[in-house]
């Protein structure tokens, strides 16, 4: 269950932590970011991570990219935000160019496609598993579960635009929180 939090990281540790997230984040970084921040480095509790990610989700930009900026800011102010963001982006930017060059040479090989297909399927499973794990650990009340399911159904099943879904559900979900705590 909840890990004891570690002491706040220094700037170098912060950079290295996000470097690891960027390096391992194949097919989306939300899964590996949770692993590194909550399980591995223990800088954030499960609830902390979910709430930073929740705010990151409703702002423009990637949820984990936004989360990295906010987590960096929390530990080391503006410098922390820069350190975390550049840690997250550094390795993938370099790897991308190597891949682009390799792809032109090897894209004809069926084995490359087969391996990429298997990795993509696994990345999808990791993302699904991470969402379920967060839900299981946070034990949301029924109303919160309903809003989560509505967000899922709206975007994945009904294919509604994400922005419209959020514009409707975010005020309702926040409103329900305010209402619940007051009564």
């Amino acid at each position: 269950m909840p890990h004891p939090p570690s002491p706040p990281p220094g700037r170098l540790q912060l950079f290295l932590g996000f470097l690891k997230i960027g390096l391992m984040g194949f097919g989306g970084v939300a899964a590996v970011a949770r692993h590194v921040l909550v399980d591995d480095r223990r800088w954030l509790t499960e609830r902390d991570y979910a709430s930073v990610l929740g705010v990151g989700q409703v702002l423009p930009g990637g949820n984990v990219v936004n989360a990295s900026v906010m987590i960096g800011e929390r530990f080391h102010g503006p410098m922390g935000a820069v350190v975390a963001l550049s840690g997250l982006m550094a390795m993938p930017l370099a790897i991308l160019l190597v891949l682009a060059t390799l792809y032109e040479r090897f894209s004809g090989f069926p084995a490359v496609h087969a391996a990429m297909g298997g990795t993509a399927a696994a990345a999808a499973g990791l993302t699904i598993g991470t969402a379920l794990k967060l839900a299981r650990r946070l034990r949301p009340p029924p109303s919160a579960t309903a809003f989560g399911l509505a967000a899922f159904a709206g975007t994945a099943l009904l294919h509604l635009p994400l922005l419209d879904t959020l514009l409707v559900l975010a005020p309702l979900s926040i409103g329900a929180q305010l209402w619940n705590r007051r009564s």
Partner: protein
Amino acid sequence: MPPSPGRIALTFLLLSLMAVGGANAVIPDIHRQVVATLHWMDDPTFATLFAIAQAAPGPNVLVVSLIGWHLAGWKGRAAATAAMSGPPALIAFLVGRALNRGAGSPWIERIKAGLVPLAIGLILASGVVMARSAYGGPLSLLITVAAAIFVLACDFNPLWALSGGAVLGLASAWFG
């Protein structure tokens, strides 16, 4: 004629502010701009760049870096990356600073608590969308389900599941 880095930056600056949910949310808009409106590249090129970005580790926003690189070399890459991630990062910084300062205030805690289930639902949704596009038969479904169980059952490094998926994909091509 290849577009100038300034023109690339301007295009992605506008798109960056619409990218709620990350770069993947505006892929259709990026495609419309870059392929249909501006004619900077053709459809197959766009699809290939997208596939490469998906295969690389890291945030989805990197597809934009690759497009910039393809259009105008390293200057294009720098312009596209900065334009696409700069404004959202600045907003996240300001919001993060306000929220971190206000941590513990009941209002802020409730707003955050209201957003958590939406984030989890949307991550689940993106996992399902990814699984759909990765689906290539029973084996890929099996890999997806196994990877999901792997995360749920233990706290081990996700890289194990990814390499397992790659090995199974390779094995199926080898024997199948």
